[in-house]
């Protein structure tokens, strides 16, 4: 693998990481903590929305984030031909 390709692969990985970590931050620290009060004005069933993000929603989204990362990285590995034998 050429050094150029190697660094392209790494940059693509970093871009993906950054996007996913921004979502990770928004749903937990954003919706669950910093914006909890305004969001609590909205309700989701019997849940105030901010409270739901803090005690339920953020956890579900964490799970989704990891699987999205794993799937997109598998695709990236294939594209750059660096997947394991």
């Amino acid at each position: 693998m050429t050094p150029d390709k190697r660094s392209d692969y790494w940059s693509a990985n970093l871009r993906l990481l950054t996007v996913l970590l921004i979502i990770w931050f928004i749903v937990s620290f954003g919706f669950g903590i910093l914006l909890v009060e305004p969001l609590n004005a909205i309700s989701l069933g019997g849940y105030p929305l901010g409270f739901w993000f803090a005690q339920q929603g953020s956890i579900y989204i964490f799970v989704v984030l990891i699987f999205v990362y794993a799937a997109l990285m598998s695709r990236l590995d294939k594209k750059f031909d660096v997947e394991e034998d």
Partner: protein
Amino acid sequence: MTELELWSYGVVGATFALYIGIAVWARASTTSEFYVAGGGIHPIANGMATAADWMSAASFISMAGMIAFGGYGGSVFLMGWTGGYVLLALLLAPYLRKFGKFTVPEFIGDRYYSQSARVVAVICLILASVTYVIGQMTGIGVAFSRFLGVSYEIGILVGMGIVAVYAILGGMKGITYTQIAQYIVLIFAYTVPAVFIALTLTGVAIPQIGLGGTYIGDDSGISLLAKLDQVVTDLGFKQYTTQVMGSTLNMFVYTLSLMIGTAGLPHVIIRFFTVPKVKDARYSAGWALIFIAILYTTAPAVGAMARLNLMDTIQIGPVGSETGNLVYDERPEWFKRWETTGLLKFEDKNGDGRIQYYNDANPAFVAKAEEFGWKGNEMVTVNNDIMVLANPEIANLPAWVVALVVAGGLAAALSTAAGLLLAISSSISHDLLKGVMMPKISEKSELLAGRIAMIGAILLAGYLGLNPPGFAAGTVALAFGLAASSIFPAIMLGIFSKRTNNIGAIVGMVTGITVTLLYVFQHKGIFFVKGTEFLMPELGMGANWFLGITPEAFGAVGALANFMAAILVSMLTAPPPEHIRHLVEDVRVPRGAGVATGH
């Protein structure tokens, strides 16, 4: 023997027999099997084992209680102890799997071409893991003494014996398969009572939906959470859905500390060395979080519903009415049983023979309470742990459900203890003995050394469980603080920054640990020894002096100090040698990962 004891012995006995059966079947014969289960664990199986490894006596027994009394503030544990898996999956696990060695200090030692860095990592690992394991041992002792009618000491000895059988024989291999069985036991034990209680209170069988459902205990048609808010505020407590822990900033930093700490805990990280490929390490973290989320999304429902049940048991009529409070002599059986343990304590302050449970630290409500003739909160002790342990009894569930909860609590404590003990013993036999003291030791001798280190670790854990030192209570502050402030930044920089060198990493780790421990010890005493606290209010260093952050939440500040020191010092000193830059480049690419090895 009572019916409950009979059930408890039956269920606990059956699970223990299962664990020993697995141990005999999954013996380890090589160091690779002993340290990383031969590297052949399927990602879903590893996810399940990771979940059991991760969910400790604290997650199983204490967390729902912390949420029950902390309300919204308890969210820091829910988000903190799950969000760390995102960091683990995206920032650490795949690269460490690619690196392909047996222990966390080994990565730090190789990446920073420094035995000193490796030894610093070993010290942090042992300190964090030992603190953590004491909590598991005391959990085992408590479960035995409460439910099985034997003494606390015998409980710990039995627990040590069970862990010894499968951890010494099977190492990581035995531990992995046992943890899978323990996960099934603990998740079943946690969700069954939750489903029953959700059905009773909301008519919905799924606790996660029930928590957002309508309360069916009266005809008001309001939601369960609104009902709970009303019941607790009527008695002067803070509103359940909005009460914060400390301040918003403290909750923010606390959550971040728990997340970074989770990602940096060695006994969790080494679980990802057991899967065959880098790709598996990524997926396995996702599976682990699914299995963890089943319990973690149930816990807030258990907490809220248990709190409501408890309030309703005591406050049987309108607040302030003459017959509104439960007559002490008519208290239910479970109440009496938990009183004998000291976890529940009643004091008839106004001598009316009835129980008043309210917030006497709320001046506005105290004025009202005085009009009712109440002379202070009479539930002088309501321990957090009761919320899970007594929950099935409060909800009148049959004895077999209670027995199941006992077996589940034991499974949670045993599985976490085993993972921690493996992290401790492998860092002694592999990092200290083979890595630093006797590099030429043969594989067979190292395997034997691993087993001896395991025996030593079990004896130490048992001893500390029987004679808990002050720092046993500091799991969150010490273990998570150390993992967050030393191990996580060192690994992350090792992967993401080629420029970070040996001196930078060591200065960073030492800075992170120092900042964190100074703040913790300043508040809680040096190694939690009473009387050695050194708060200095006259210098503006009173309790939580740094931005109102509590010592438990301080790991993130230590981590920040570590990152800054490591980067700054690295920039001012020579860059790492060429072969280290190659090592980092190699770790970043999946191709070429073999099974984890020790050389």
